């Protein structure tokens, strides 16, 4: 997490002189954090470990409180105990104990309530007042919607009706919304209308945790802090871009949700397209949130629409059958819990997109893919450059290819640049070698988990790494023809790839048409 020079709190124009020039990552504004969906997996696995990590690393403000809100009938102690377990299991900080945990736990409280019950929101309002008095939260509040998406609008409506929204709050009031933001273009627009009625855009934080990962941010540093790459970053020198978000896991306990979502909605429309914008965008005029988001939006506007009658030329879907991963037999998607045995939901999606602007000239394919139960867990962005115009060196059987720059996002985090070099010896054999930079060791410092980074940014009021509405809408527009076509025509070949494989054959053919191939998983 980057150090920032603190803005000294001031009264009557007198700043704290000890703050001047001090580098700190600490959030200065006191606040209350309300987690809707506090008993869910996201809170336990990600949010609470991230919040405790922020506390352990001295990033949370001195005065804060965390309120869990969910339907489950828990009291404060049960909530604390469950969160303690979550932190112990998922925070990689050891078992929480000692004075820092005790102080943190004291600031946790819980409200059991329905999302559609006015009286529960009145209870929340009273509780927020109590918390503000006890922990000096200054009336600032961050709401985090970690619930199923179907209740997002409901919660926002009730916050407004109970004067818990920006109009009724003394300090700042922000809303963090988890993905997916809608299930299609129309539902996203409807959700946006509900939210913007209550929260101005400047107070809405649409979270995409991929954007909080260090290598994703480093992609911007790599492009715009180095002179050597940017001159090559265009249709003249780049041959193609591949963005992969491959998982080995299946749907786990999320069969019900996944049946309605599928890989295109769940991954491509948000994470993967977001990554594409970072690769393709122009340099922003400054590092402020809107300059960056303006450039990302321009990319999305420039994506050539996929003709609905030619979707098969640009998109491939797949669904996994039974197979083997890591020596273990795993069931087919249709045999997973809460999944229709005749399901038409795709667990793999691949798109080929073109960007019609000056930089990319509408001629460089951007290949996007995401799937479950694939051979290897791997998320990366690979920029492949064109071949040299004339092969001067190397023997016939030498295997060397174009240069590629790969930003590894997970499980490894780093950058890898491949280039061709002479193999030692009297003959002029050429071999592809790579230069690797690994985040885990490169700087010898801890890299904050994505949720820590993004929660801290939301608490600071920095929207840079959050998705603006215009980008969400534009991303839905890109995938809408594919969603429509797939909905109209059920897949006849499902399941069409075995668990533990590279994905469906049709995906290989999608690239073969361009004389390209997917990077192996």
């Amino acid at each position: 997490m980057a150090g920032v020079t603190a803005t000294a709190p001031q009264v009557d124009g007198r700043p704290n002189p000890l703050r001047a020039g001090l580098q700190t990552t600490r959030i200065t504004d006191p606040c209350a954090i309300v987690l809707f969906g506090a008993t869910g997996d996201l809170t336990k696995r990600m949010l609470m470990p991230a919040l405790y990590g922020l506390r352990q690393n001295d990033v949370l403000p001195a005065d804060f409180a965390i309120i869990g809100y969910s339907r489950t009938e828990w009291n404060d102690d049960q909530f604390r105990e469950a969160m303690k377990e979550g932190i112990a299991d998922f925070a990689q900080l050891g078992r929480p104990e000692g004075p820092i945990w005790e102080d943190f736990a004291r600031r946790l409280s819980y409200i059991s309530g329905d999302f559609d019950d006015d009286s529960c929101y009145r209870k929340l309002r009273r509780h927020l007042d109590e918390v503000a008095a006890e922990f000096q939260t200054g009336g600032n509040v961050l709401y985090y919607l970690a619930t199923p998406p179907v209740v997002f609008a409901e919660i926002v409506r009730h916050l407004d009706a109970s004067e818990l929204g920006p109009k009724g709050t003394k300090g700042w009031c922000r809303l963090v919304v988890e993905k997916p933001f809608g299930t299609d273009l129309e539902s996203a627009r409807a959700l946006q209308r509900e939210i913007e009625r209550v929260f101005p855009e400047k107070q809405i934080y649409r979270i995409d945790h991929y954007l909080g990962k260090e290598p994703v941010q480093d992609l911007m540093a790599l492009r715009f802090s180095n002179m050597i790459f940017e001159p090559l970053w265009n249709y003249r020198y780049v041959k193609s871009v591949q963005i992969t978000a491959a998982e080995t896991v299946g749907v786990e306990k999320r069969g019900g949700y996944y049946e309605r979502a599928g890989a295109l909605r769940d991954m491509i429309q948000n994470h993967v397209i977001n990554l594409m914008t970072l690769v393709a965008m122009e340099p922003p005029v400054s590092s402020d949130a809107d300059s960056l988001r303006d450039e990302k939006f321009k990319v999305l506007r420039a994506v050539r629409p996929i003709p609905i009658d030619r979707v098969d030329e640009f998109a491939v879907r797949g669904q996994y059958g039974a197979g083997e991963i890591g020596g273990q037999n795993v069931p087919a998607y249709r045999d997973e819990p809460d999944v229709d045995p005749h399901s038409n939901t795709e667990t793999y999606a691949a798109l080929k997109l073109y960007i019609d602007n000056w930089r990319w000239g509408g001629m460089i394919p951007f290949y996007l893919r995401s799937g479950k139960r694939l051979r290897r867990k791997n998320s990366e962005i690979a920029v492949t450059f064109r071949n040299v115009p004339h092969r001067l060196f190397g023997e016939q059987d030498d295997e060397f290819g174009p240069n590629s720059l790969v930003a590894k996002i997970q499980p490894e985090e780093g950058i890898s640049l491949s280039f061709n070099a002479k193999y030692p010896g009297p003959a002029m054999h050429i071999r592809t070698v790579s230069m690797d930079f690994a985040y885990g060791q490169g700087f010898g410092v801890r890299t904050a988990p994505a949720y820590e980074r993004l929660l801290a940014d939301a608490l600071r009021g920095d929207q840079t790494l959050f998705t603006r509405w215009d980008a969400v809408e534009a991303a839905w527009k890109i995938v809408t023809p594919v969603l429509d076509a797939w909905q109209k025509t059920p897949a006849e070949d499902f399941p069409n790839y075995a668990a533990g494989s590279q994905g469906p054959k049709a995906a290989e053919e999608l690239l073969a048409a361009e004389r390209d191939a997917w990077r192996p998983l």
Partner: protein
Amino acid sequence: MSVETIVAELHRLRETQSEREVMSATAATSSLIVYCDDAQAWDGITDSARQIAIAHGARLLLLDATGLNHGEHVCAFCSREGTDTICCEQVTLPLVTRDHAMILADVEDLLLPGLPAYLWWSCRRLDDGLFPRLRALAKRVVVDTSLDGNGHGLLELERALSREPHAGLRDLAWLRGASWREMAARFFDDPRRVDELERLEKIELQSGTPAEAALLAAWIGVQLGYTATRKSRQLTTPTGRQVTFTYTRRGKPGEICALFLRVGRVTYSAVAESDGHVVNLCRESPDEHRGRCEPMIRSSLEMSVSEALYGPGGDGGFTPALGLAACLVDS
């Protein structure tokens, strides 16, 4: 062993490793020179240096002034990160049999050509004649003014910086104080308390050695516009009022364990718990006692050295604080 023999041995090591396909990545982005004169600290310093070399891809030149090593030693050490193996070269040179000119010549010959060199000077004597000569080879230098145990390192470092203001000198005693500077600032984030800084009467510090205490007190002084005269433990405010600095030796060398700021009948205290990971902050007055605990962010030795040598650019607060700290210890 001559330098030529050492270079030949390094070459042989590379070839051997390459044949065995062990050395998938050979680190060669910088040279890290480490000078150590403390036999007790040698193992810890060399372990940390190896970790830094692996992390930053450095050839490691260990200059042993302890007398523990009697011959030159050349080796490669490797670290496995996932599927990658990264190997670094290490050369250990015993200094007892070499004069300064010889040491310097050998080091120069063993530096990776065209790549930056970094110096970790782990020695209590900053007035050693070898120090400025090695410093001249390095892009950045890290020392620890706490090592001498009496604060005189601050005076030496101040002299060195005044002679070469752009020498890229960093002090571990200053870096270790970062969390304490943050804690001190935190007391006055409450806007109602800012005025009390104007009436500060006494800065009391407890630490294992005086350098880090003097640096923290001096930093507070610089932030508040104080001045000091040599051979006095008094700081003078811009209005001419005197503020007393007191130091009590307590705890481990190099570590601060408590800070007290006294303003009339009000005392602000930051006291580290025995494990050093938690600090209890308190504002105490006749009618109020408000305390809370805060995590103390502590870096390992290798992380501190790594940050000092390879981390982001300098810290503008250090040089003025060093000037004032030198006045406080020069008594």
